[in-house]
């Protein structure tokens, strides 16, 4: 199974999809993903000038073979923008740094430490708009909740959610700045500096007061981070830890509001909330794609790859692979329970998974439906969902009874 089965004798060149624009991908990537899945294991998307893998089993096989499909990429823009982050390391080098942040993000830490703090943030965020009767949940709920939660878990002492959001977006844009746009580079560098300064301001406190935060874990670990490692890995967390809870809050709310029958069943049995959360990130995966670098010439699932090739692992596509998920485009909390790839797989499995599960699936969305009576979409036509590398609702206007 796995790679042994996927690497076959027969091979062909990588087919190309050339009639889809970047804008079309951003509006709705799923028809293109479906075509790609049916075409070959690896397909080049001309508009994005990138090769992508879209099938569930293929991506799982690649994630189980880090020697062939490496996260190490000296030329990557992520390294240029953020420094040498653990996200672009493999093996022991990655494992050492990962181990140093784990104590802050374990499910036990979430339960004992973060749950009450996240609840206080949620109450405060809700108090800001819950008597209004209408709101865009992106700006009123999801963005402030995700930004404040991330600042808290990382151990920033004095950074507001608007700044977190700006830094996060600037770092993401910088990491995807393939056209070397100088304004994007400037903003990314400014965000990187801002993160470093916030770390500098917080470190003395965490040295004196060991606590559950990521920064504290990094400096008090048996194998502590160097300052450069702290800078790089906190930047990754800022870039990669804000969109995902923000977008999955909105996706879960949207999925349930569009399917009132499912919403009623979930409200009647609160044990279903975690299941509903997993379904929401399968349905619209906040991180739709991440890259791996091919380290040797290999025929993978019938396609010839060369050493040095970059392949985008399109988990947003794999999570709608019809050979694994029946009627995959449908949001269905009650579908047959199967694992998905929204948190990735392998050594780089999302470190923030347990925080996200709690925050989105047990706290924010269940409580939102409790507190806002008769919550409903203002108009489905006003909902916008965007992106394919990162994807989620960008506006979610709702109304409720006050």
């Amino acid at each position: 199974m796995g790679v042994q089965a996927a690497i076959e004798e027969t091979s062909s060149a990588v087919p190309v999809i050339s009639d889809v624009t970047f804008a079309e991908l951003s509006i709705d990537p799923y028809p293109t993903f479906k075509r790609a899945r049916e075409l070959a294991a690896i397909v080049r998307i001309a508009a994005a000038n990138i090769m992508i893998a879209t099938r569930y089993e293929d991506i799982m096989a690649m994630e189980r073979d880090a020697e062939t499909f490496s996260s190490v990429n000296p030329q990557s823009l992520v390294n240029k923008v953020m420094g040498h982050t653990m996200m672009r390391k493999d093996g022991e080098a990655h494992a050492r740094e990962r181990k140093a942040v784990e104590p802050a993000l374990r499910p036990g830490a979430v339960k004992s430490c973060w749950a009450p703090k996240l609840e206080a943030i949620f109450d405060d965020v809700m108090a800001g708009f819950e008597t209004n009767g209408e709101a865009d949940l992106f700006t009123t709920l999801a963005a402030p909740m995700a930004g404040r939660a991330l600042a808290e878990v990382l151990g920033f002492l004095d950074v507001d959610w608007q700044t977190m959001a700006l830094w996060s977006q600037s770092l993401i844009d910088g990491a995807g700045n393939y056209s070397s746009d100088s304004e994007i580079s400037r903003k990314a560098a400014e965000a990187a500096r801002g993160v470093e300064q916030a770390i500098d301001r917080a470190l003395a406190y965490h040295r004196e007061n060991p606590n559950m935060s990521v920064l504290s874990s990094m400096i008090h670990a048996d194998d502590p981070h160097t300052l450069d490692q702290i800078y790089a890995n906190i930047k990754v967390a800022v870039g990669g830890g804000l969109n995902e809870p923000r977008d999955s809050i909105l996706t879960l709310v949207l999925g349930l509001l569009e399917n009132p029958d499912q919403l009623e069943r979930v409200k009647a049995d609160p044990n279903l909330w975690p299941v509903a959360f997993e379904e929401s990130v399968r349905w619209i995966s906040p991180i739709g794609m991440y890259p791996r670098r091919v380290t040797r010439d290999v025929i993978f699932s019938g396609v010839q790859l060369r050493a040095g090739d970059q392949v985008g692992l399109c988990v947003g596509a794999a999570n709608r692979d019809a050979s694994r998920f029946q009627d995959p485009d449908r949001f269905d909390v009650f579908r047959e329970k199967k694992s998905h790839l929204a948190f990735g797989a392998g050594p780089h499995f999302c470190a923030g998974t347990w925080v996200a599960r709690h925050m989105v699936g047990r706290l924010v969305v269940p409580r939102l439906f409790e507190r806002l009576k008769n919550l409903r979409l203002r108009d489905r036509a006003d909902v916008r969902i965007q992106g394919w590398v990162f994807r989620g609702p960008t506006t979610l206007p709702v109304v409720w009874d006050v």
Partner: protein
Amino acid sequence: MPNITFILPDGKEQGCTARDGLSLMEVALQNAVPGIIAECNGSAACATCHIVVDDALAPMLDPISEHESDMLDFTAAPRAPGSRLSCQIKVDGRVDGATIRIPAEV
């Protein structure tokens, strides 16, 4: 090669031989043992490769780390005496002839 018997969530038994040096999780995946999902492929981050070892084997294995122990409190099937993450147990002579239970989710 060590022989291992998995007792599946439905009570059926599945025997297999295991190569030294693999983890019990990898052995389970190679043999398509139901109930071992292993989302994180052995990083002890997902708690989806939960097994229960018997009283005789448990004390012979390397001790449970703080991290593994934390994860075991959050597995889909409740933690039991003998609960382990199968990704954290390497195959060697100690597991030869072992009976490994895959707990059923509640």
